[in-house]
């Protein structure tokens, strides 16, 4: 109760930055997926903390939607990583370079 809203925002920003760092540095597609999950959960922390702060439930309900969508995104992502592995025998995101950047 006594914890200020700013600490929640700091926590979520920290989590978001860890996720972003992972996205930028990891070459394994699965690690990339996990880093994106961290970023999405950082948003969830914000939504729930602010829902408590503002005293309405909108944010909490939206956090439920975000979790469901994150799960759907992982399902599609794992499917793509699976065909990636079948075609390239690797899940390193820097390996597929049939097209130049």
């Amino acid at each position: 109760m006594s914890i200020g809203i700013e600490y929640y925002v700091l926590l979520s920003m920290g989590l978001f930055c860890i996720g972003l760092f992972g996205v930028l540095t990891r070459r394994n597609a699965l690690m990339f997926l996990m880093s994106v999950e961290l970023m999405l959960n950082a948003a969830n922390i914000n939504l729930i903390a602010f829902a408590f702060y503002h005293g309405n439930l909108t944010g909490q309900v939206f956090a439920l939607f975000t979790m469901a969508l994150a799960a759907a995104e992982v399902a599609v992502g794992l499917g793509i990583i699976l065909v990636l592995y079948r075609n390239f025998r690797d899940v390193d995101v820097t390996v597929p370079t049939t097209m130049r950047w």
Partner: protein
Amino acid sequence: MAVFELPGWTALAPALILAVTGLVLFVFDSISPNSTNRSLLAGTAAGGALVSLAVAVWFTFAGVGTPTVDGGLGEISILGGQLVVDQLALYFMIVVAIVTALITVASYDYLVDHTYQAEYYSLIILAATGMSLMAAANSLVTIFIALELASLPSYALVAILKDNRGSVEAGLKYFLIGALSSAIFVYGISLVYGATGHLQLENIAAVISGGDVDGYGGLLGLGILMLIGGFAFKTASVPFHFWAPEAYEGAPAPVSAFLSSASKAAGFVIAFRVFTTAFPLGETTALIGVEWTHAFIILAIVTMTVGNFAAATQDNVKRMLAYSSIGHAGYALIGLAGLTADGGEFVMGAAMMHLLVYGFMNTGAFLFVGLAERWEVGRTFEDYNGLSTQAPVACAAMAVFLFSLAGIPPFGGFFSKFFLFMGAIEASAETTAMLAVAAALVVNSALSLYYYSRLVKALWIEEPSTTRDRLAQPTGLYAAIIVAAVMTVVILPGFGPVVDTALEAATAIVG
């Protein structure tokens, strides 16, 4: 009129019809999973898209969404204002339905040997449902859900040629950047929610105008910046444009056409709605210290320039079209850059016109590439040399698309660009930087003429470098290309109603 008696949710019919069509395709697939009955599947998908188009056009003319002062039925809000059907929503539902219909008809021939027919069409229709809903979404929640509904099938569609390395690589890159940008987008939503306590666009605007967010201006500003990142991904503009060349090049050509036309239009409609409804320019500026139009002015100039300069250096036709599609996102961004505190409906209407014309000409151009892929002539400009001797009709259509994309006078693309230019000049009375945008538009259009006419020259003037066998004439692809070409041309005499509809819709949302 019958519309009066219908319950409010039926106003969403264009999107609902697409959703039902997608489910019907799933039923077909579960009854006979290995069916390759292409006529039935493509016919159902195209039929659903056409019915959705017809209903959206009917609603527009019946006055659904038109403000009551203009003799219409007023905008219809559904689920407590989470979704809203107004002129803007119907206009973009029409654009999405047109592109979907063209794509499904063309896919009939493109996917001739493909194993997963029903999956392909149901994914296309579900993505179209998401885009149609994006047009009507009026709260950050529904915007995010509709955006994901459009994105998730698109990832799978890009990678649908499972044994083709290019397609899988394109799918991977599209997915990685898409997942990253949607994480940034949802974090932006959470910050805007934190600053205002609401997710519905009108309520956000009310809180901002009421001055209740003092002290949270920085949070709000960061949130808005992150939202722009999400829109930039969906519309393939700088700084999230990296996926576009790879995804468009590796994906099956009809999917590239779908993503670059319908998906881009849907991305713009949410950007238009969010920034005109939720963040009133004057009050938001007072809170965050900067006008958000400045971000769009910079993005518009950079996106146009990056897209067109990169397109000019390409050898691969599909990749050239992909970069040109980034350039066109830059043109449409002028619609947001030119907004002012008390006006700007003209420039936004021009951007909407451009997105409609673009829906025809760009879809057509990508479908011609699809035709060339089916002929297996190769991918570079040289491979296209002298195609006109063997397929004059398709090449004439392609010339129409390319000249229209470049903005040559007799075609639709000229008019929308001309309106954008006029709008930018008009807005420069308030923001001098808009003069730079107008100049960038002219310079980039001139540059784009160079690489578009290079392709026309290859098709019509160069001699074939190799002798080819007789080229097939697949009915569906030809039909879609010719319809797109005819519409690109006749939209000129028919431009009056389009201009009126777009301007009315823009006025309703800006005013």
